[in-house]
């Protein structure tokens, strides 16, 4: 029987603010899983800490709501121990790019086959609206006592430099587009970053839904007018993010330069979609090449004992023989 969106929902009370971008992302995650027909018990979600981090509780799959900034290493450990699972790591902009920045960077060195989806709204919501690492300099939201004194980081450019093999940006209220990006990120064999722009209607009073979608208030009349939306889709602009020959350094370089340039666009128009994609051996491939036993059984499934007797399966006699002195 085909799985429906309903099968991925729980009845847990949702306490996000009305109008929160998290809702759009949550729906897109549930719909993407349903469209992919992934059995709920084969999916394992991890999240860090923040409003967004409650997401796993609303999704009817295995879920771990972990520590602030640590979603990625938890997810990496789980995926490497059991690669049969579909592992998605959920992060926030403060959570993943601030306190968890070291993991964000270093996970890029490993190309573990998982999707890192970051809820990016420019503020720390649960602690009442402080500036996050993606809030642009000099912006003053209602919640800030002074304009933001720090420059913002560019997560897409950082991911590119760090070695992510799939880099994309989505928008929380573009349901269909976001769904497709989530599916593409999960299907990508390797490490995928999907940074999702989302409004925080309570604390980010600058980068609002209206701001992203070009609904500008006419000061004189007080009426919202639809000017040109800020967001545009890369795929509709003829942009090709894919490295077609991963063995060609020139093509890699060209596609990285192009992705970097696209990642710089913000004032005026903001691109969403896939910025960069390359297929390379995963960390698991590398591990399997070293440790033959892992090819047959991943760490979580390796037979370690005889269940009826408890006798350990490992044979260390050869190692002991090497250490033997008499």
């Amino acid at each position: 029987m085909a799985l429906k969106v309903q099968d991925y929902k729980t009845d847990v009370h949702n306490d996000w603010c009305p109008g929160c971008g998290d809702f759009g992302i949550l729906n897109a995650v549930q719909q993407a899983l349903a469209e992919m027909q992934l059995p709920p018990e084969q999916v394992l979600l991890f999240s860090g800490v923040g409003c967004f981090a409650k997401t796993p509780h609303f999704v009817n799959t295995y879920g771990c709501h972990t520590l602030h900034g640590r979603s990625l290493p938890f997810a990496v450990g789980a995926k490497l121990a059991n690669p049969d699972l579909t592992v998605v790591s959920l992060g926030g902009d403060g959570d993943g790019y601030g306190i968890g920045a070291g993991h964000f960077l270093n996970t890029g060195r490993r190309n573990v086959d998982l999707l890192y989806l970051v809820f990016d709204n420019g503020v720390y919501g649960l602690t009442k609206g402080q500036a996050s690492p993606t809030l642009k300099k000099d912006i003053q939201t209602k919640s800030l006592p002074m304009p933001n004194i720090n420059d913002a980081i560019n997560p897409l450019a950082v991911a590119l430099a760090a070695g992510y093999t799939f880099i994309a940006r989505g928008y929380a209220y573009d349901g269909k587009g976001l769904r497709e990006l989530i599916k593409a990120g999960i299907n990508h064999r390797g490490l995928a970053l999907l940074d999702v722009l989302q409004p925080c209607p309570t604390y980010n009073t600058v980068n609002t839904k209206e701001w992203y979608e070009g609904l500008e208030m006419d000061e004189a009349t007080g009426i919202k007018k639809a000017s040109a939306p800020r967001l545009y889709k890369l795929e509709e602009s003829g942009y090709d993010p894919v490295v077609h020959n991963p063995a060609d350094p020139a093509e890699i370089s060209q596609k990285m330069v192009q992705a970097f340039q696209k990642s710089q666009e913000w004032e005026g128009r903001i691109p969403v979609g896939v910025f960069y994609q390359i297929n390379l051996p995963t960390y698991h491939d590398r591990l399997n090449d070293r440790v033959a036993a892992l090819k047959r059984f991943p760490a979580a499934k390796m037979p370690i004992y005889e269940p009826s007797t408890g006798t350990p399966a490992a044979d260390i006699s050869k190692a002991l023989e090497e250490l033997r002195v008499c």
Partner: protein
Amino acid sequence: MPKAPSFSWMIGGPQGSGVDSSATTFARTCASGGLFVFGKREYHSNIKGDHSYFQIRVSEEEIHSHIDEVHLLATFDKETLEIHKQEVVKGGAILYDPTLLKPEEIGRPDCLLVPILYSEIIQATAKEFHREKDLMKLQIMKNVISVATSLGLVGLEFDLLKSTLEGIFKGRRAALAPMNVWAARKAYDYGTQEFQGSYPHRLRHVQVGNGHRRIMITGTTATALGKVVGGCRFQTYYPITPASDESEYLESHPEFGVAVIQSEDEIAAITMAIGAAVTGARASTSTSGPGFSLMAEGLGWAGMNEVPVVVFNYQRAGPSTGLPTRHEQGDLKFALAASHGEFPRLVLAPGDLEEYFYDAIDAFNYAERYQTPVIVLADKALANTTETIPWYDLDGVHIDRGLLLTDEELAVLVASEGRYKRFKFTESGVSPRSLPGQKGGIFWKTGDEHNELGHITEDPDNRTRMMTKRMRKLETAAREIPIEKKVNFFGDRDADITLVSWGSPKGAILDAMELLKGEGIRVNFLQIHLILPFPSEFVAQVLSRARRRVNVEMNYSGQLAQVIREKTGFTMDASILKWNGRAISQNEIVEGVRKVLKEQESKVVLTHGA
């Protein structure tokens, strides 16, 4: 006098000059001759150049510690002589390079001074093997030469050294064997012919009975092998002295089937291990104090979410970076309480290289049986100890995965209860455990307080019950774990003094007990092996009948004594403490006990070691 004539050999030199390999060659040769060996390694936090040394104690009887005396000191440089010459016993021998200094400059006319013309032997060897152009490379043979001269001096048969060298130079390096054996022979004969007559100490080949197989092993390797047998298939680490050796041993043996992941920091090390453990892998991480500090938040999450994860903390001298390559037992109270809030954890403190192995297995069994973090407090001294011990006996070793559900058991449970609850309230506190991938077993985990399903709730009644459920696992563990896994008691019930200790001082205490017995001092010794849950009843029983209660620890404040007082109400009468970064010797325990008994000292501070 030592219980058995034991012989102590020391080699020193700049870090990176081959001190370790010389010592291993010497130790292996003695061990292959049926002798018991205990080796202590000391080094600076530096890659090349600073002074390091290795002391090998050898005996025909079992030994478990080092002694202060040195019977033979082998040196390549002046610094080693300066630092260690006073440790050499009267009538002992000092091997030195006569091109560096004159014998009268050594200042030990009461010792046998053996000049070794390293360069002469190396040149002769180069000539013999037509390697004159490699003279620089061959300087490394100083090591073999010093070992061989030493063995010639004590008269341990050359064939043992020969086969040790052939065992070292094999495979890709096999071509180097004849040259090393040739140089060794020259140096050995020099030691025998020129100096043996003036030297009183001898080592002899002892026949070892059939069925008494022995291995020579270090603490980190012992742990690694225990983890393999215990089913650990996922190990994470961030490089740190002295813990990295364990992970590197596992990584260099891919046949064990362990995924070894070097993480970006210790926060990632523990959270990766927890992620792997959530999926059902037996997962572990090994670190030292500074790394363990970073792991605190991960420990708390694993405790809150009932995840079996095993953490080895090879303690070194703190606080902060401390003495990064030196020994201490300063993390006991931190390990008992690390991370904010309260959650159950087990804390084990192995005291020798057999316990390092078997505790690694037990740690995983406890972690899964009680579904909570297990911390093993290892330390620098034993991590870097090289010791001969009996072949590990695997009879009776078993793996216990606790309430881990099979697919069938899970289906039955779901059928009878309607829904799987990961944190179901149970009498023991332990709930049946499913794994991701299992149909019907979906769970949620969260660092927030949660209900039986694993969803967040701040309900006060749930909080009271859930906290109680988790903490109750500690009572269950205390009840189920047999006393012989919690404590070891040595000596007679009645004694003049009762020593209480944990971890690595065990060896020195056991060796010293024998000596003190010879002096008419009756010592018994309580080793506390499982520190949490604390074996309060047994400890109280022993202490209540003790005449004089003394704790022996490698830390400033007597942390175990504080724990004992907290758990049993008993106060120690005296303490023997040390915090200079160097492990406790057999001599120091003997002297410490004398001071407590004869001079009525209530706090003895030990300071030996270079």
